[in-house]
């Protein structure tokens, strides 16, 4: 052991240094590029311009709304389903896992092509039917429900994985039965005995979904909506410095949101204990 120890240590630092260079150098370069205008010295003009730019706030808010809706829908769908699966048909687990992983192997471009084909189904003479009106409603640019539906599908692999890990870490059946023998109805048992112990997994699933929605470009762009990622792209095309500043800013925004979510989870945990 004594002989082996120094070498892994060395490797550890080497890997760390390599990763730091790989991630931090481009980031630092981007930041410097955005704040250092030749001949003028350090200036934060580029960032000021973004905050004032047309569509920044609407894009960001739309993305956040989409993320919130996606998280809500995907969790409401998956949590009861996964718990029921564990209690009722554990043997179906692998089947559901494969189904939930499918979005990883279908390229977004194929996915979006499918969605637009479906959305174009409504021919003119159907324009007065509820089907057609539904199609129109879910494509409302103020809040495109169709994107939420698409994101729910795209988030399935991540949500499934987090929840599965969370459920594996506890004895769901015994907890539910213990709660029921204490007088809890099935729904009460889920809410009072299972969910509180699933907090880590729920948080994790929300994280991943939030990151996914904030960065999603292909589907929203091809369907013609303008959430944050699409807006960044459209701004960036015209001014080089501005576009890089936007990327840096979007990174910071994502990090800030993830930290906020983590902080929220941490606080409720201490509150529950206190």
């Amino acid at each position: 052991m004594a002989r082996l120890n120094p070498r892994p240590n060395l490797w550890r630092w080497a890997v760390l240094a390599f990763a730091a260079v790989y991630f931090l150098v481009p980031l630092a370069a981007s930041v410097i590029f955005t704040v250092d205008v030749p001949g003028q010295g350090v200036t934060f003009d580029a960032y000021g311009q973004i905050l004032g730019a047309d569509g920044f706030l609407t894009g960001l808010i739309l993305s956040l709304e989409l993320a919130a809706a996606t998280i809500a829908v995907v969790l409401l769908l998956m949590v009861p389903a996964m718990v029921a699966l564990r209690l009722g048909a554990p043997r179906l687990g692998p089947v559901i896992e494969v189904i939930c992983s499918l979005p990883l192997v279908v390229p977004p471009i194929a996915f979006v092509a499918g969605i637009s084909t479906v959305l174009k189904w409504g021919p003119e003479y159907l324009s007065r039917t509820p089907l057609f009106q539904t199609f129109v409603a879910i494509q409302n640019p103020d809040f495109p429900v169709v994107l939420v539906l698409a994101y729910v599908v795209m988030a399935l692999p991540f949500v499934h994985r987090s929840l599965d890990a969370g459920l594996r870490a506890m004895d769901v059946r015994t907890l539910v039965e213990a709660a029921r023998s204490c007088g809890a109805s099935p729904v009460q048992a889920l809410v009072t005995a299972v969910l509180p112990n699933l907090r880590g997994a729920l948080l994790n699933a929300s994280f991943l979904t939030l990151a996914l929605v904030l960065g999603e470009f292909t589907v929203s762009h091809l369907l013609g909506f303008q959430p944050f990622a699409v807006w960044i792209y459209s701004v960036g095309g015209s001014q080089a410095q501005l576009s890089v500043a936007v990327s840096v800013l979007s990174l910071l925004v994502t990090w800030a949101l993830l930290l906020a979510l983590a902080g929220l989870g941490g606080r409720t945990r201490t509150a529950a204990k206190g």
Partner: protein
Amino acid sequence: MNDMTLEKAATVEFRGLRREFGPTVALDGLDLDVRPGELVALLGPSGCGKTTALRMLAGFEHPDSGEVLVDGQDVTEVPAHRRDAGMVFQSYSLFPHLSAVDNVAFGLRMRKVRTAERRARAAELLDLVGLGDKGERFPHQLSGGQQQRVAVARALINHPKVLLLDEPLGALDLKLRRQMQLELKRIQTEVGITFVHVTHDQEEAMTMADTVAVMNGGRVEQLGSPSDLYENPRTTFVANFLGTSNLIEAEVDTRSGDGIVLKAGGGKLLLPEARCSAPTTTGGKVLVGVRPEKISLTHADAAGDIPAGRNRITGKIAATSFIGVSTQYVVDSAVCPEFEVYVQNIDRDAKLAPGAEVVLHWNPAHTFGLHADQSLLAGTTGSAGVGTVDDEAAV
């Protein structure tokens, strides 16, 4: 806890319960009556349907046919959370996110009792199980035995009509298990409600239970007090599963008064008719049983000292093992190849060593008779249907 002793204890009845899981018959027409306020143990080898029976009483499992009655009322269709049955599980089942006192108070929270009141009542119950000072601990900060005590308190808080325990001590080590057996018995006496306790450990069942239901293959094989089952087993399964029995194949010869004379090997054995659960027509076959500790061992040289009127068998000591309070002998004889004899270590006879010719003798009143058409080995460890503790944990 005075308010709890006022609870009216409930009867429990299983009526012809049947349940199949695919090809497995878990319960095969189970019938059982539990008297109010009694601690009844469901005892049997792993896989004999004990857990399934208990889960039907709790409402987690539905019978294919048959019914469950609590206090005379059919509860077969009543959902689990309205059954008034507390349950303690084999695996640790406390809610990990709640402190001990909040775990205990959980049942009151479901009944929308105010926080202050439910914490006060939970604290009382924690006192009852001897954990009054550990209320603020979380489950992972408690030992296995402490967690099970909290689980008992949690199951009692809603004043259930019956408390169900599914091998609650199965995961504890032997010493703690002994201690918890007495502890559970004390709690049961104190709260006075009906307990149904599932175990595959015959010693645990005998220590704790007022009545033991020995289960085998999805039905109750014999029901009775621990001493009654031990002294008067009616099947070879019960004779072997509860303690150890020596079984001899014999033939009915004649009658003498209220006893039956049997031929076994070359000799004659006397069996009280009242202790024979088999038909006793002359020439019929009977299995004769006797417990190892009822037998005395005398060296063949001193055979003349044995009082008359005792059942005797001759044989040769094959092995001895000294285990402190007693010495266990294995004796080979013509009627039974491996006769077990336990002799208390009061005055040890140095001549009783392997190879010695001996006479085994016992009071005929300690002999029991069983139907001859059963396996001699039913209920012994290693015979079919008897699994290990690990199997048990997996179910």
